[in-house]
């Protein structure tokens, strides 16, 4: 006690930090950094787990989808539209390539494979959650012959580009590549 008092008194007079000050700060800092480091595992555990990440790819045989038909498949727990577009739908989408779009993209860009090679225009493969708040839009609604999200009224055209309503962007493409003539691998 006496030494401590003397040391503190000494520090007070000279205004110089003592060895004890250094130990206090070093110990406090080590404790704070250690505590903060321990927080991270408890935060990070909530991120998608390894098995969830491992589900990240799926294969699908497109020959099951007739022209004018749409199927919804699951990829990473999320629905994906696989739409076999009719010639009229493709034409309608191409006709609108030039108009002012909220999230500009040509129809050709909307059927691009994830490796950058062109896809097949008749197969539109997009993630099915509305980019507004995640509802699944239904085909055949809205003024553009594509999808309408009933939740908040977003309208997509036949290339799944946003044309009206609150959604900020086009339905994102599901990253796919053709592994055979009619088979795609998503993810």
């Amino acid at each position: 006690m006496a030494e401590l008092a003397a040391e503190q008194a000494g520090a007070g007079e000279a205004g110089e930090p003592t060895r004890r000050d250094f130990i206090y700060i070093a110990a406090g800092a080590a404790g704070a950094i250690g505590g903060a480091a321990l927080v991270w595992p408890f935060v990070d555990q909530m991120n998608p787990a390894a098995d969830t990440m491992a589900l990240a790819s799926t294969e699908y045989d497109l020959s099951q989808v007739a022209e004018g038909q749409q199927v919804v498949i699951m990829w990473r727990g999320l629905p994906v539209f696989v739409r076999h577009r009719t010639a009229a739908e493709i034409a309608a989408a191409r006709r609108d390539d030039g108009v002012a779009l909220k999230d500009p993209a040509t129809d050709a860009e909307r059927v691009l494979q994830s490796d950058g090679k062109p896809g097949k225009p008749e197969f539109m493969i997009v993630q099915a959650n509305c980019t507004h708040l995640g509802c699944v839009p239904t085909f055949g609604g809205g003024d553009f012959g594509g999808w309408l999200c009933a939740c908040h009224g977003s309208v997509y055209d036949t290339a799944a580009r946003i044309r009206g309503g609150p959604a900020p962007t086009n339905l994102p493409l599901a990253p796919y590549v053709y592994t055979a003539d009619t088979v795609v691998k998503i993810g």
Partner: protein
Amino acid sequence: MSGESTYTPGSAFERWLDVRLPILRLAHDSFVAYPTPRNLNYWYTFGAILSFMLVVQIVSGVVLAMHYVAHVDYAFDSVQRIERDVPYGWLIQNIHSVGASMFFVAVYVHMFRGLYYGSYKAPREVLWILGCVIYLLMVATAFMGYVLPWGQMSFWGATVITNLLGAVPLVGESIKHWLMGGYAIGNATLNRFFSLHYLLPFLIAGVSILHVWALHVSGQNNPAGIEPKSKEDTVAFTPYATMKDAVGLCLFLLMFALFVFYMPDALGHADNYIEANPLVTPPHIVPEWYLLPFYAILRAIDFDILFIDSKLGGVLAMFAAIGVLFVLPWLDTSKVRSMRYRPVARQFFILFAITCAALGWCGGQTPDRVLLQTGPYVKELIDRNGAVIATVDGQTADIATRAAQQRINALGPNVAETVRTREPYRFTVTQLSQVLTAFYFAFFLLVLPLLGLRERPTQIPDTIAKSVLRAHDGPAPAGGKALAYAPRDGAPPPEA
């Protein structure tokens, strides 16, 4: 708390305990001898009702957790099993689900009461902010609890709300995936929501203790909004406030029981009796009724504000609607607490209450529902000379377009060259929500700050006792008779 303790241990055991853990002293000083303003009305019983509801929810919830299975494959069925097979499961499940609604009924009454009587003003700012924290925790708890039955509304409500976080620039997507534990609402989400739904009520209980502590430091506000000046202004908590709270609670429980036994699903959605299906969105997703006003504010922002897009704007507006409550003590400039003596503020308050209710109604409607329309959609078919050859109309754009097409087909090819459309003016739910949202924020950010500087309050009574006696217009009891009894010695009060 205020004044010295009046507790006197009655028995040898109480004396023994009092010097080791003065818990009986604390209880006596807080809930027996504690002086409460003598003019408290029934709006002031909702604090006690809320404490009771928290206990109801925790007890019924702990029991439900014994039977509930937090897994996407079993959650829906386990809730059905609770309702059908578990002994009295139907009762306990109904108590818990209706109880959530009743909890919010009580908290909204409690909040509006605080707003009306100025209970947020100095020295009760911390008390008010703690209340806001409790409310936020309640919202989070209720949201996560609603996901657990794993019905369609559970799933899609959770999807919509977690997607809100995706609106945050840069880190939004990461936060979303972090919260969901995957790329979509799934088993990981259900499990963590169950865990947190179990945890948060205990946080609420903890903050509630701080809330009551702050209340007992500053003393209760009252309908007159003036501080007690003498003993004449207060009565002892027990029996006066205790009994009044008990009567209020009984009336409240009547309403609670009515819902539990006769219409347990009246406040929910039929869609939630369909098991969650990630491939099919219900046509109309709405949150539970108690969150509808904020949902309406979220949807009201359907336009970009400078660099903020509409999605982020809606999210910000929704959080700001709750956030503004936290700074309310510093927004209201009036020195007068109770709106009883602020005639103009009182009218704005009534408008505000109506606005909140109307926002709730808007939140439950489809946003594009037309409330007012100046006339039909008119389509004029024009021939190549520019003359109008036919006019058709319809209540919606679709109907008018179809009618026009039919008429064009009937006229034969190349008769009608062009079609001119005249659109009526339409007032939709979204536009009504925008007006109401504007007033909601104006009340806090314009009315309360400016009104306090300009208004002339009416005569405020000198003391609480005077306000009561004047209100009842009766003869004054000699020397504040209600207070002649001080429960110091535990003796029964003298017969009046």
